[in-house]
C-alpha cells in the first residue's frame, strides 16, 4: 500500500503492468477532489476568514472578531429573509410533493399516452428558471393579466400584495418543479412489483388501503430523496424572487440578501458573515435529512 501512496510515482516501478488498482483509483479520484476542494471547500474557509474582518466599503478597517455575526443576527432584514426563505421552502416543497405524487400516480396508471406525458413533463424542467420567472411575472401582472382574465378578476395586483407576491413565486416554482418530482416518484413507483397490488386486490384491499400499505411504505426512500433535494434547492432560492419581485413585499430570500451585500452594498465582511450563516443553516437541514435517510443512502447512491 505505501509503495503506491503517491500515485504518480508508481509507474516507474511497475511500468510494464501499469498502476496498481488502488493507485489508479486515487489517480482517477484526485482531479474531482481537487476541483471540489479548491472551488467549494476552500472558499468556505476563506469566507469565514473574511467574515471576521470589518470593512468600510471595500477597505479593510481591521479585525472585528464576531462583530459581523452579532450585527447580522440583530439585523431585522436578516430575520425577514430567513422567514421568507422558510415560508417559500415549506409551501413550495409541500405543493410540489402533493402535485408531483398525483402526477406520478396518474402516469403509472396510464398505458396510452405515457410516452408523450413523460416527454412533456421534461419541458418545465428544461426551461431556465429565469425564463419561468419572466413567464409567470407576465402571467400574474396587471397587463396583460392572463391569470386575472382566467379567474375573472379585474386588475388584481398579485405581485404588489405582500402575501400574494409570495404565493405567485411559490406557484411559479411548483409549476416548474412538480413535474420533476413526479418523474423521480414515478421511477420509484415502477420498482414496486405489480404482483403485490394484485394479491392485495385478491385479498380484498381497497384502493386507499393499497395506496396506504403498499405504495407509501415502498415509495418512502424515493420520497425522502426527492424531498431532500427539493428542500435544499428551495432553501437557496434566488432566481424567481429576484426576477418576479426584486425582493419587494417580504419576498427577499437569504440568497438575495447575501448577493446584495456583495454586489450592491460592497461589504465583503458582512456579506461573508451572512453567507456563512446561510451555509450553516442549509447544511444543518441537509444533515438532518441524510440522518433520516440513513447511511444506506450514501452508500446506496454509490451503486454498490
Amino acid at each position, binding site marked *: 500500500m505505501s509503495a503506491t501512496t503517491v500515485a504518480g510515482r508508481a509507474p516507474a516501478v511497475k511500468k510494464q503492468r501499469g498502476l496498481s488498482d488502488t493507485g489508479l483509483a486515487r489517480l482517477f479520484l484526485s482531479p474531482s477532489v481537487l476541483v471540489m476542494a479548491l*472551488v467549494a471547500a476552500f472558499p468556505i474557509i476563506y469566507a469565514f476568514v473574511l467574515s471576521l474582518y470589518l470593512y468600510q466599503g471595500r477597505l479593510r478597517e481591521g479585525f472585528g472578531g464576531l462583530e459581523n455575526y452579532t450585527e447580522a443576527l440583530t439585523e431585522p432584514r436578516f430575520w425577514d429573509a430567513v422567514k421568507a426563505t422558510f415560508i417559500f421552502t415549506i409551501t413550495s416543497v409541500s405543493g410540489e410533493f402533493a402535485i408531483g405524487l398525483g402526477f406520478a400516480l396518474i402516469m403509472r396508471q396510464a398505458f396510452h399516452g405515457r410516452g408523450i406525458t413523460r416527454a412533456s413533463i421534461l419541458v418545465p424542467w428544461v426551461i431556465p428558471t429565469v425564463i419561468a420567472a419572466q413567464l409567470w411575472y407576465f402571467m400574474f401582472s396587471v397587463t396583460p393579466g392572463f391569470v386575472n382574465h382566467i379567474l375573472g378578476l379585474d386588475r388584481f395586483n398579485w405581485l404588489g400584495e405582500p402575501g400574494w407576491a409570495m404565493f405567485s413565486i411559490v406557484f411559479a416554482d411548483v409549476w416548474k418543479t412538480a413535474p420533476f418530482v413526479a418523474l423521480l416518484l414515478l421511477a420509484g413507483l415502477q420498482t414496486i412489483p405489480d404482483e403485490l397490488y394484485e394479491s392485495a386486490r385478491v385479498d380484498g384491499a381497497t384502493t386507499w388501503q393499497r395506496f396506504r400499505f403498499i405504495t407509501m411504505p415502498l415509495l418512502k426512500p424515493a420520497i425522502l430523496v426527492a424531498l431532500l433535494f427539493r428542500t435544499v434547492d428551495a432553501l437557496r432560492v434566488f432566481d424567481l424572487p429576484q426576477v418576479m419581485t426584486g425582493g419587494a413585499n417580504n419576498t427577499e430570500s437569504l440568497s438575495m440578501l447575501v448577493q446584495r451585500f456583495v454586489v450592491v452594498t460592497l461589504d465583503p465582511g458582512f456579506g461573508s458573515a451572512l453567507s456563512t450563516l446561510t451555509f450553516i443553516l442549509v447544511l444543518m437541514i441537509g444533515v438532518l435529512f441524510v440522518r433520516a435517510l440513513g447511511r444506506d443512502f450514501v452508500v446506496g447512491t454509490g451503486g454498490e
Partner: protein
Amino acid sequence: MAKDEGAVVETSFWRKFGRYSMLGFILLWCLFPFVWLIDTSLKLGDRALNSPSLTQGPFGLQNYISVFDQGFGYNLRNSAIVAGTTTIVCITVGSLAAYAIARLPLRGKVVILSAILAVALFPSVALVPPLYELWRNLGLLNTYPGLYIPYTAFTLPLTIFILTTFYASIPKDLEEAARVDGATAFQAFYKVVLPLAAPGVFAAAIIVFVYAWNEFLLASTFAPRDLVAQTVPVAIAAFTGSVEFQRPIGTITAACVIVTIPMIIMTLILQRRIVAGLTAGAVKG
C-alpha cells in the same frame, strides 16, 4: 344480464375518460405556459401585447429581430461556450472519479461519498462573497473561466452519482475477461467500460449542460453586464432595466422562445436518456 353488461361498459368508459382527462391536465400544466409564451412573442404593438386574449393581433416576427439588435447573439455565444466547457471538463473529470468509486479498490468510500454529497447539498450563495473577492484579485470577473470553474465544481457531485450508478450496472465479467486477457486496469476502463457506459455519460452530459445553461445567481454576480461574458439568463433578467414599470414583454418573450425551443427539441429527442440520468442520480431503493 344485459343491464349488468351495460353498467360495466359505462364505468369503464368513465374510468377511461377520467384517466385521459387527468393525463390531459398534466399536458396542459406542462405545455400551456410555453404555448402562451410563443403566442405573446409573436404579438406586435401595445394593444396586442397588453391584451390577455390569445388571438388579439396583429402578429409578426418584429420582436425576434429586436432581440438580436440588443446583442442577444453574444449572450447565446457566451452561454454556449460556458455550458459547453463545463460539460466537457465535468464529464472528463467526473467519469474517472465515478469509475474509481464503482469499480476500483478504495478505502474510505463512505467518507468520499459523504463529502461529495455535502458538496451536492451546498448552497451556491455561500460561494458568492469569497469567490467574488478571489475572482476580483485574479481578474476572473467577466470572464468564461470565472463561470465554468464554479459550475464544474457544483455539477461534479451529480455527475459522479449518475455515472457511478451506470458503471455499477455494467457486468463485471466483461472487465475481468479483459483483465485475464492481459489488459491493465486503465485499458479495461478505457476500452471496455467507457464504451458501454456511453448512454450514461450522455445523460450526465445533458444534465450538466442544462444546469450550466440555466444558472443565474453566480452568472449575475460574476458577469453582470459586460457582453464579453454575460450569459443568456442574465440578459433575459436584465431586459427589465430600461423602464422600471414597463418590462418590454415582446422582446423578453421572444428571447425566451429563442432559448427554449432548441432545448425542448433536444429534450424530446433524448427524453429516455435524460429520465434515466435524472432518476439514477436521485432515486435509489
